[in-house]
């Protein structure tokens, strides 16, 4: 039921972005890329936050189900971060004139991909469940410490070609009301998509863990 609703919302959202969002001054229809790029970036940060949260849950309780959630969320975070990077590069080509010029925003998102890429490598390299969970949890927490810096602080410290963030220093929203509404809706729908994927992957992971446990039991008999 929820999956159907999510699909409908995604389709509806896409329609809204293409038909309701008015072309922007200067950017024209290119502004629609922002409706993909911005939600991807926000959800990525959220996913990393969720990953850090469940990592701390694991470290406190040592229950593997928290580790599973933390790992899935981190992987989704990387996926959304990658989508934000690629959509950003396309946006850059169309508005600045080049895909990549190591603008501070681009450098920081690249660093973020590297930091969480190392998380993936860490998970693959440790075989033992509990050891892997402990190391991943610690790393997920440390990695998340860098996120506010890289996403919010550093890009505002250096001059950049990237447009001013919607949550900017002057506190003013320099955006048409209808555009803001649809953007917030896009962020909400993307969050829902992320959460549904997380729950689905968690179910799959738990199913395989149970299967593995059953096999082990049978062997012992």
């Amino acid at each position, binding site marked *: 039921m929820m999956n159907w609703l999510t699909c409908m919302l995604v389709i509806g959202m896409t329609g809204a972005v293409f038909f309701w969002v*008015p*072309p*922007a*001054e*200067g*950017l*024209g229809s290119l*502004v629609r890329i*922002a409706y993909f790029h911005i939600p991807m970036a926000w959800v990525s940060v959220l996913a990393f936050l969720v990953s850090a949260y469940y990592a701390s849950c694991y470290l406190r309780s040592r229950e593997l189900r928290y580790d599973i959630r933390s790992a899935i969320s981190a992987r989704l975070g990387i996926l959304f971060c990658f989508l934000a990077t690629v959509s950003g590069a396309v946006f850059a080509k169309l*508005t*600045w*004139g*080049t895909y990549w*010029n*190591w*603008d*501070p925003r681009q*450098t*920081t998102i690249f660093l973020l991909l590297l930091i969480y890429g190392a998380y993936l490598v860490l998970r693959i390299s440790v075989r033992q469940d509990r050891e892997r969970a402990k190391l991943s949890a610690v790393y997920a927490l*440390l990695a998340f*410490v*860098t996120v506010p*810096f890289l996403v919010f602080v*550093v890009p505002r410290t*250096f*001059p*950049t*070609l990237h*447009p*001013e963030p919607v949550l900017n220093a002057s506190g003013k929203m*320099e*955006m*048409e009301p209808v*555009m803001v509404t649809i953007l917030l809706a896009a962020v909400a729908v993307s969050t829902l998509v992320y959460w549904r994927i997380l729950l689905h992957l968690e179910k799959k992971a738990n199913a395989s863990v149970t299967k593995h446990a059953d096999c082990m039991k049978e062997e012992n008999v």
Partner: protein
Amino acid sequence: MKKRHGISLLLITAFAVFSVFSFQKSLTPYVSLAQARESGMNVQVKGILVDKQVQGLADNKGIAFRLRDAAGEEVQVLYPGTKPDNMEHAQEVVVIGRYAERCFQADKLLVKCPSKYERQGKGASS
């Protein structure tokens, strides 16, 4: 146990903050005109288009304009390509190239659009 973890966390955070500060220069590719002149290497300079004036060069050789960087220094820029459409309306311009003699030879030109997400035809506010 808790204390040991706390100290490690503190050390790691301190190291991270220290790294960010020492890598500051690598975090931004943009340099000032003075630095561009000194280094003589291929650099990126960010600045504004002086008087919003762009001249086309004869024989389709490209365009010329004056760039003023954040420090207030100005330079004549020569760019052999075509003028980007929205150049006069750009908030800032980035030139990528070398500082040669008395002018800047740009290989690439980037523009920063104003960050206003307003409906088209609303009438550009100054």
